[in-house]
């Protein structure tokens, strides 16, 4: 029995030391001097702009990657074309690839000497060090989440009902709307939550392509870094608490959805 408790306390101690204690301390530090300084730090113009830019990028990215996730999931499971195994591995790549490599790739494409950068620049369109670059980086990084959630569910439900709908004369779109989508809706919702969390927190790829100009191209995660490096610890902790709060909200939603999925 001692062995059992050693595993329990050992693993929980590790969790506390590496994860829980540091996160709790950041919350404490942010509110150390009461809610006044916290509010001042959150409501300064650079912080507000960073938050708005982050939300703006997320609002563009999440719907695009959700639509792609559903289409790609259907393509992988239902459409057997050669090379789908490779497509599968490529879809997972953003999960395993360094965000800096992603940022560098976009820099090489859209920089002034890049493959597309020169052409776009001549037509007065800025990608790098502007919002489109941040959106492209976030699209890449948050691409796999909806696909990963949708694929196993599509495999499990099979094609029986879809075939039945088709033989009864339903169009492909009607079949999708009435049969396929209701079956995968929890998986899609779960994927959307994960995508949103990833978009709000993206840092590495965005750091490379955004330029990080305060009040212009700085997202909230970059605001945390800039504040810390400018010895504005209160600002860094306050913005971190905001992001951590969103992360915890994500966890709550995930837990609720797992229950909803099980009961349906």
């Amino acid at each position, binding site marked *: 029995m001692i062995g059992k408790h050693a*595993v329990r306390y050992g693993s929980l101690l590790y969790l506390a030391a590496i994860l829980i204690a540091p996160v709790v301390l950041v919350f404490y530090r942010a509110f150390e001097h009461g809610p006044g300084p916290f509010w001042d730090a959150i409501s300064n113009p650079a912080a507000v702009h960073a938050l708005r830019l982050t939300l703006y990028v997320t609002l563009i990215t999440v719907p695009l990657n959700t639509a792609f996730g559903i289409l790609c999931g259907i393509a992988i499971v239902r459409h057997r074309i050669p090379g789908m195994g490779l497509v599968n591995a490529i879809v997972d790549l953003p999960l*395993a*690839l360094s*965000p*800096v490599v992603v940022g560098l790739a976009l820099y090489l494409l859209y920089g002034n000497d890049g493959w597309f950068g020169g052409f776009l620049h001549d037509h007065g369109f800025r990608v790098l060090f502007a919002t489109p670059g941040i959106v492209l980086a976030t*699209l890449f990084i948050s691409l796999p989440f909806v696909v990963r959630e949708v694929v196993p569910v599509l495999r499990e439900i099979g094609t029986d009902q879809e075939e039945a709908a088709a033989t009864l004369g339903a*169009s492909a779109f009607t*079949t999708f709307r009435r049969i396929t989508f209701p079956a995968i809706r929890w998986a899609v919702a779960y994927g959307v939550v994960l995508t949103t969390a990833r978009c709000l927190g993206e840092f590495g790829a965005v750091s490379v392509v955004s330029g990080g100009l305060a009040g212009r191209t700085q997202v909230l995660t970059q605001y945390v870094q800039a504040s810390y490096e400018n010895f504005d610890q209160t600002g860094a902790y306050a913005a971190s608490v905001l992001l951590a709060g969103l992360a915890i909200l994500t966890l709550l939603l995930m837990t609720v959805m797992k229950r909803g999925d099980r009961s349906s």
Partner: protein
Amino acid sequence: MFPLAVDAARFLPTARRRAVGAPALASGLALTYLSVIVLIPLAAIAAEGVQGGWQHFWEVAWNPEARAALKLTFAVSGIVVLVNAVTGTALAWTLVRDSFAGKSIVNALIDLPFALPTIVAGLTLLALYGPTGIVGVDIAFTRLGVLAALLFVTLPFVVRTVQPVLIELDREQEEAAASLGASRFHSFRSIVLPHLLPALLSGVALAFARAIGEFGAVILISGNLPFKTEVASLYVFQRLNSGDPQGASALALLMLVISFLVLLGVGGIRRWATRHDR
């Protein structure tokens, strides 16, 4: 369950097949999007990395600073793999086989490193283990700090791959072993561990890939000291910022290949495991 039923679509007349599976349009759209967002950018890295031929690629990728960064990255990621194999399995075991107050909260907290922005992860570690920390340990700007940051962000991988296998695992064999006098450790090693092995391997492989490429969690705590705490991703970032996209691309290409190999390896482990299940 009925793999034949799924494959039946293949034998349907074309008119019915079109409505059944994805119209070719879905695949076409998905592949185009994938190309624009993922494939073309990665092709740019490959093209830039090998621009001056292989000889030049090695010269650029193999300079002393890059080598030091790679060495540190691999060494620390190796330690991350070993620590995660032990603590991840222990945590999964605690969550599945043990019961205590607040277990469901602990279970939900495991995913926090996935949901928390990496820069915030780095900052939280600095708050506790940095110069102004309250425990009297200062690991800022040290390799130990880099290790702590990587342990933070890779915590969920092994737990989340091992946990479902442990839940499904039948306890009959373990009970039989116990009744025959096997110790708990012995029965874990020779009965439970072999079942967990494929999941454990994919978990540590994913943690390894993540550790190799991590940037946000490391940037504040490491201080980016070349030859001391500069990891591969920081080296790539620093090369690009000092106007050397080719040097950055050489190392980035190497990291890209490693990530892809890890993913193919994990896919291989999964196929191997499902074949053994049958």
